[in-house]
């Protein structure tokens, strides 16, 4: 027995040595902040964004042959954030990730994976100048610094299928979707007339980010509040519960299915409406004759007062970058007026630039359908930039699926419990 113990201890010690004795080094030195050189950049896997990205990279490379940029598509998983986090931990994150989700920024920042913009002399001023101080403010971290550059926004609106609406006897030009009552009634008509399997089909599954496309837009439209304000959860209020009740009605009357659709239900004509941003237009344009209206509110606020979820993506410079000045210059290049204009043209997504309709008047004249999104882009609610944000969203989502999607628990109780848990997490920091 003693012999066994000795050999076990020896094995353990040996393996710890084997594993741990390889030093993993620190990060790049302080001089990285002013260093220039070749850098690596990650793009999302959205085909239109990839096209835009490759154009921008090629243009940069022709102008800066000594600071070449190599672009790579983020290997996507259920969430690309896991991949980025893994690369932060491994120390092999790229210099810039174009498609950093704002909900992941607190976690990446805590892991020491992001470079604060005030490392660069014009860091803060550039961001606030481009995006406008008011909007940019939602993207500051609790310590008051910018760890991300707000890049593009996809204000979420209600898309509807004009042909299916006409088939159901609804007005395809001005559909009755302004108030909750109208929305519900329209949905009932659509389903009863059997023009589609569902009136609208948000994903009812339990991933933490799904709430951004059912609860959050309506909550934002109603209250203009983030999920967390001043360190406290905001959803266990009568407003939050009301939004929950609205969706519960949709699920109870089978206007929205309880099972996730594999693919795009709106594009396939299985759902008559979708709650999504303008990036989807390139997906729908050949298949569906679509129209878009703002998110419904209970009492029917006028369109120019309705807020929505931003579905924003940021750019960020990552800690492992050894040539941060190049990275910063590249970021400024990629968000310059021309590049933003190309982004708009190629992807239909709204760059976060002040006064979009004015700056790109030519584009919006040619594509009037996009004007409403540009307009909506000024009224967005972002995810809260707080510690443990992923866990808070997951806690909320678990409550949502239990109470709203499947009616296994009363909504107010579930929301209250989730809010209590969220407040604990917020206090923990």
């Amino acid at each position: 027995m003693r012999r066994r113990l000795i050999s076990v201890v020896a094995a353990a010690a040996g393996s710890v040595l084997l594993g741990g004795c390889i030093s993993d080094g620190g990060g790049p030195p302080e001089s990285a902040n002013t260093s220039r050189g070749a850098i690596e950049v990650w793009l999302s896997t959205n085909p239109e964004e990839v096209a835009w990205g490759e154009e921008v990279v090629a243009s940069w490379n022709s102008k800066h042959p000594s600071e070449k940029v190599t672009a790579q598509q983020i290997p996507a998983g259920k969430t690309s954030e896991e991949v980025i986090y893994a690369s932060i931990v491994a120390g092999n994150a790229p210099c810039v990730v174009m498609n950093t989700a704002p909900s992941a920024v607190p976690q990446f920042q805590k892991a020491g994976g992001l470079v604060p913009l005030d490392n660069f002399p014009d860091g803060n001023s550039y961001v606030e100048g481009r995006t406008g101080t008011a909007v940019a403010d939602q993207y500051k971290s609790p310590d008051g610094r910018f760890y991300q550059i707000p890049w593009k926004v996809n204000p979420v609106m209600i898309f509807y299928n004009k042909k299916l609406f006409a088939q159901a006897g609804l007005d395809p030009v001005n559909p009755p979707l302004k108030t909750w009552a109208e929305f519900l009634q329209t949905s009932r008509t659509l389903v009863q007339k059997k023009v589609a399997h569902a009136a609208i089909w948000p994903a009812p599954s339990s991933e933490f980010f799904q709430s951004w496309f059912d609860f959050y837009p309506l909550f934002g439209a109603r209250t203009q509040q983030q999920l967390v304000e001043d360190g406290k959860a905001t959803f266990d209020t009568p407003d939050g519960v009301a939004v929950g009740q609205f969706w519960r009605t949709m699920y109870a009357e089978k206007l929205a299915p309880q099972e996730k659709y594999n693919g795009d239900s709106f594009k396939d004509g299985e759902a008559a409406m979708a709650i999504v941003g303008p990036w989807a237009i390139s997906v729908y344009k050949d298949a569906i004759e679509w129209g878009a209206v703002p998110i419904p509110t209970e009492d029917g606020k006028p369109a120019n007062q309705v807020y929505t979820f931003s579905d924003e993506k940021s750019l960020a410079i990552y800690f492992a970058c050894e040539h941060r000045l190049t990275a910063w210059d590249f970021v400024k290049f990629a968000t310059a007026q021309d590049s933003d204009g190309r982004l708009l043209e190629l992807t239909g997504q709204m760059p976060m630039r002040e006064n979009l309709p004015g700056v790109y008047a030519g584009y919006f004249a040619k594509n009037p359908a996009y004007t409403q999104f540009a307009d909506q882009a000024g009224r967005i609610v972002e995810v809260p930039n707080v510690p443990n944000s992923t866990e808070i969203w997951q806690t909320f989502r678990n409550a949502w699926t239990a109470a709203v999607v499947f009616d296994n628990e009363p909504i107010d109780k579930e929301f209250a419990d989730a809010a209590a848990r969220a407040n604990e997490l917020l206090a923990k920091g």
Partner: protein
Amino acid sequence: MSKPTTIPPKAKPTEQQKLTVEPAPRNRLRVLILSIGAIMFIFPFYYMVIGSLQKEADKSFSGVFPHPDNMTVTNYQEINEAIDAPRSLLNSTVFTIGVLLCTVLFGILAGYALAVMHFRGRTTVLSAVLLVLVVPFQLLQIPLYVLIVRAYGLGDTYLGMIIPFAINSTAVFIFRQFFLQSPRELFEAAHIDGASELKTMLRVAIPLARPAILNAVLLTFIGPWNEFLWPFLVTKQQDMQPFAVALANYMNNVAGRATNPDGANMAGGVLLAIPPVVLFLIFQKRFTSTNIGSGVKG
């Protein structure tokens, strides 16, 4: 009742000779039950193939049978356009062969040593082998990731993919059981002839172990070929990703845009399933149970 067959000297009775031939009615009942079961087992595969060839997803009962006017190879074409199939298949092959080589090479050494030799620490290692089977990979995953990618710097390399799977512990188990059951006289005869342990192993044990090697190869192959999570974590560059990862990426992200997303997903599934199934069918006659089932003892 089987007739006693003459067993030629020095050969174990083949499986055919060991099987009983039952009287006809019982045999027919057996065949009937097996057929019903086999059809139920195979049905999802059949349905997957049919679904992958559908132009529009047809979930009705008649969709079970192929309809000529709803058939197309578009789903496969879309996959071909979206992922670099030859490259990812190459990556899968390198990954799998790397694991197989390490497993056979070092696994036989380990299995032989654990079965036949006596040395200090043997029971500890034995316990470790069994413990490995109990621990889920997800528990080891993150520290392993930090070790391999950060400490050893093996991200985006074949080595980084292979190392956590290099020696399959079930294969070690199989080799050990095989050698435990082999007649000791063979090894002792070699000793008496003056062979060292190493020579004994090389000249006697390994040739003897061919059936066990085949079984180990077939069982071990499944792991790296189908493995998705680890290569996904370890490789960032798309041209290093094995086939399982490329397909999973496609199914999660791009398939939603295909004309028939369900069909596209199923086409991906068919492509991933073909190599192991084909390999298995080719070798399954040799996949004799006599050697696997030595897991019965100990």
